[in-house]
């Protein structure tokens, strides 16, 4: 392999490693396949010319069907405000110098990159993390005064800013650059900052799905990320009884996080899933129902 080959390969791998996927992706796909199946069923009934298919029957299927899929327009160019799932970073769960990620449903004023950044920072500075083990590295009383974007660098102006620790700066940088198209962040009049290396910044392990406090279906999709080859997974029910305990292999990895998906069928109830890897632990409580 030539040096150029190696440089291209490394550049693409590094760039690709910055791309995160939405935690509800599989649920979104399943919802879409269910919609297709429902539409197909209705079409088949009507197409077969069933003499007994009264107007009331057809109306029942149409009304009962989930709402249609949104139009296939590029997300970044939608002109109106829509609810989005935005990544917000915090420190935790068991140390205050490593970042973890949560996804929060917010409705930015518009779908512009600036408004998405304002919305994500609004959650970071004004809201609380869903997981009580997470926290912000910023002091209370900080507000976002303005966000502007030039090229792929956002400039964030804050009101009430105190002295800036490196992990607080990275919390803001990782949150803002999780929005598509942004690579750097200038805080006030400072130099533009990029994401520091993942292995030095992110928690050793975290649970991507389910999120803390979430209500999920009985076909649970565990999604785990961490800097290790394997993660230990334990699920306990509301009484503390262990319903699943096993190791899973994390694929991908160095220098990015490895990830694993694990499908588990569980009965309705309250559960806690705990993952341990690379010397770190993360746990989320959730409802199946």
């Amino acid at each position, binding site marked *: 392999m030539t040096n150029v*080959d190696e440089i*291209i390969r490394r550049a693409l791998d590094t760039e*690709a490693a910055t791309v995160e996927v939405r935690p509800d992706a599989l649920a979104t796909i399943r919802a879409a396949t269910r919609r297709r199946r429902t539409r197909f069923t209705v079409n088949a009934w009507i197409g077969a010319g069933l003499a007994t298919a009264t107007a009331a029957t057809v109306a029942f299927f149409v009304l009962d069907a989930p709402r249609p899929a949104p139009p296939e327009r*590029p997300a970044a160019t939608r002109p109106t405000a829509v609810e989005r799932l935005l990544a917000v970073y915090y420190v935790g769960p068991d140390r205050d110098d490593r970042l973890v990620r949560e996804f929060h449903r917010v409705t930015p004023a518009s779908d512009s990159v600036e408004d998405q950044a304002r919305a994500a920072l609004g959650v970071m500075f004004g809201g609380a993390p869903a997981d009580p083990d997470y926290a912000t590295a910023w002091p209370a009383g900080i507000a976002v005064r303005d966000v502007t974007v030039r090229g*792929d660098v956002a400039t964030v102006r804050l009101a009430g800013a105190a002295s800036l620790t490196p992990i607080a700066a990275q919390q803001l940088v990782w949150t803002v650059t999780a929005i598509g198209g942004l690579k*750097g962040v200038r805080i006030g009049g400072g130099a533009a900052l*990029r994401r520091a290396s993942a292995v030095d910044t992110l928690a050793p392990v975290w649970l991507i799905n389910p999120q803390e406090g979430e209500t999920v279906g009985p076909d649970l999709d565990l999604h785990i990320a961490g800097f290790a080859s394997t993660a230990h997974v334990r699920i306990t029910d509301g009484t503390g009884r262990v319903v699943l305990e096993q190791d899973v292999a994390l694929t991908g990895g160095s220098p990015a996080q490895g990830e694993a998906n694990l499908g588990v069928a569980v009965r309705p109830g309250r559960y806690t899933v705990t993952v341990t890897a690379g010397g770190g632990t993360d746990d989320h409580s959730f409802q199946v129902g």
Partner: protein
Amino acid sequence: MGERPNTEWNADEAVTHLFGAHYRPMVRLASLLLHERGLAEEIVQDAYVRLHTRWHRLRDPDKALAYLRVTVVNGCRSALRHRRVVDAHLAASRPPPDVQSAEAGALDLLTQAAVVAALRRLPSRQREAIVLRYYADLSEAQMAEAMGVSRGAVKSHLSRGVAALRLTLERL
């Protein structure tokens, strides 16, 4: 579910397995082709929905993976065609990135940024060839299938793309 031969999966099971194995790399591949993450993920999700419909004809994870790749590459190419006019205007008004590193290895970051920026300036087919070769690590035959062109065309697109990127690197 895991013990059954994968040719016996129903469409839901196939999507679940293929999601776990390939979803994230597919989104990353689409993001490299598009440079727009939200849209990249929508295109990949749409590919999985189409796969669900088509599973009864594929019945094979390898064929399904090839089908996903073709659908994602075609979806990205189509999205780029729609976006080209807007991008041309934005590119003309967008200043070069002015980013300093907050960590060691600034030179590596500069090289990476230059390669990624140059990749975006390549014609679609050359960009596809570069991403499928260097990120997805596909063979020429697999690339030809994913791009819907001959192996000879793959070689041509790839060598032109690499030459353009080499030129960029020599200017650093």
